[in-house]
């Protein structure tokens, strides 16, 4: 079985500031890491390999040279090879242009690595918070999709996917090949062993430029291919008028809170 894992390098949202569409992370950006939900996609790929050592995992991302780190994380854990789509022509892509570029690359990689049975993505990126690329990629490739995956199991010519819904865990089957996006779950994500980690630091990352993809329509990539544009980005407004309640007992604090909420007609 052939698995393609699509990941994204994102800035550490707790620490760094936003620097534009982060398919183009600025060089020297303070800290960035593999997108949190992608870690669960990576874990699912590793589990498929646990179940069947014949599984081959190819990791792919689109970004600047900095995004190599996300690919090395994949190599350290389970990926057999890694590809970075990196070209100034890809800068300022929105999700539609990004997913288009990925889809062309995936078709090209299928010639080299063999056709993919499963394409795994994180459900959404922590910087743009969109969750677009997985379903859009499925559409460009003409493949069925399952979003919000929690677990993936091979069953003959299809996959059984557990997916998260408000009503509970939904179990669906989807034929191969398909795209599954993965959300955070109770899965324990493993750590790489130290040997593999050292190997991954030396491993070759294959760079794919626009010119390497003969089928790429350049009007559909980067700023030209983006259908949405950013007008402005501003800090979220902060709350004002906070009320602190700390009475002599917790019970009285509770009553005070109730009175204040009632008086303000909040309840």
């Amino acid at each position, binding site marked *: 079985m052939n698995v393609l894992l699509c990941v994204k390098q994102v800035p550490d949202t707790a620490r760094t500031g*936003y620097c534009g569409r982060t398919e183009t992370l600025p060089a020297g950006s303070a800290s960035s890491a593999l997108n949190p939900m992608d870690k669960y996609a990576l874990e699912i790929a590793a589990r498929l390999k646990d179940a069947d050592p014949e599984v081959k995992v190819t990791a792919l991302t689109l970004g600047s040279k900095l995004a190599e780190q996300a690919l090395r994380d994949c190599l350290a854990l389970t990926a057999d090879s890694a590809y970075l789509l990196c070209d100034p022509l890809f800068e300022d892509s929105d999700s539609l242009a990004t997913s288009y570029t990925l889809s062309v690359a995936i078709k090209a990689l299928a010639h080299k690595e063999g056709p993919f049975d499963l394409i795994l993505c994180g459900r959404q990126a*922590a910087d743009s918070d969109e969750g*677009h690329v997985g379903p859009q990629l499925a559409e460009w490739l003409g493949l069925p999709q399952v979003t919000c995956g929690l677990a993936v199991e091979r069953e003959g010519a299809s996959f059984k996917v557990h997916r998260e819904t408000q009503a509970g865990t939904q179990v669906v089957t989807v034929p191969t090949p398909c795209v599954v996006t993965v959300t955070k779950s109770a899965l324990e994500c493993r750590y790489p062993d130290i040997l593999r980690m050292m190997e991954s630091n030396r491993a070759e990352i294959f760079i794919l430029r626009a010119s390497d993809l003969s089928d790429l329509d350049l009007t559909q990539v980067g700023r030209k291919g983006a*259908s*949405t544009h950013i007008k402005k980005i501003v800090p979220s407004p902060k709350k004002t*008028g906070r009320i602190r*309640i700390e009475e002599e007992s917790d019970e009285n604090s509770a009553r005070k809170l109730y009175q204040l909420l009632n008086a303000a007609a909040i309840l």
Partner: protein
Amino acid sequence: MESRSNDIWVFIETSGGAAEKAALEALTPGRALADRLGGRLTAVVLGCEVDAAVRTAGMSGVERIIVADAPEFRLYTTDAYVDALAYLVRKHQPDVLLMGATENSRDLAPRLSARLRTGLASDCTGLEFDPEIGCVAWTRPIFGGQLLETLFCPTQRPQIGTVRPGIFHRPPLIAHEAEIIRENIRVSPGDIHTRILELLADPDSGKVELEEADIVVSGGLGLGGPEGFAPVRALAQVLGGAVGASRGAVDAGWISHAHQIGQTGKKISPKLYIACGISGANQHVAGMRGAKYIIAINKNPLAPIFDIADYGVVGDLFKVLPVLTEEIRKARM
């Protein structure tokens, strides 16, 4: 095929034949856009035996209702819904398509946008016609809610956006005549690739859906263990609210991830959010800062949650919650 119109569409997702609240809420900004652009506000109802949804849409101030009512739309599937909406959009050529940012439309909207080769703004907390750019300006939180991004889609149509639940009030119901167009759309079973086998119920779900709830009571590591959710559930129940959780509580295995509020969980904008024993890390705040009112109950007076709380109670949640719950229960009897 009709020629391009100024019509504003709102996709009315249905559940059991009735309209989803988040979809009805999207009619409110839809009305404002239609008035500004001179287009017809159109409700697009998809589902099976959807008379109730059509009636509700008809009383929500729309000019037109497009209905596709067939068994294959009873339960949401990506394939059937994308096929149907893509067909309708190509036939009627609306200018704007709005949806509630529900679980299903997060699956549907990106795929539809790729099929139609147009732009999508997801989970918007604001939208308006911007005369300067001549199209809709979509505002949405990014970067875990720390920043607000304004997007626009200059050339492709329709402009598609999903609207975060709880931001807009649904329009009041009034008697009104709307034109109803019935579309006979069928999707052959062979074109629906996924099959739902079963639903493993979550003990806390089926009560109130987090993303639709007006009131959410959430617990964090301060609860001390899974049993600490008892007073949280009790308060949620008396308020008719849903139960949420911080990443800490979910990672500790006290409650399922479906309840997680934050960057890697749900992002919600209820009217009232009550954070119990939650310190308020950035990744949590990312999921709830859109709440109209925030109440925090925490023993640690320096917890960052107090920086964003409208009402902050410094105290032991196990003493505060039962009294608060009892006060509310007494008042509502």
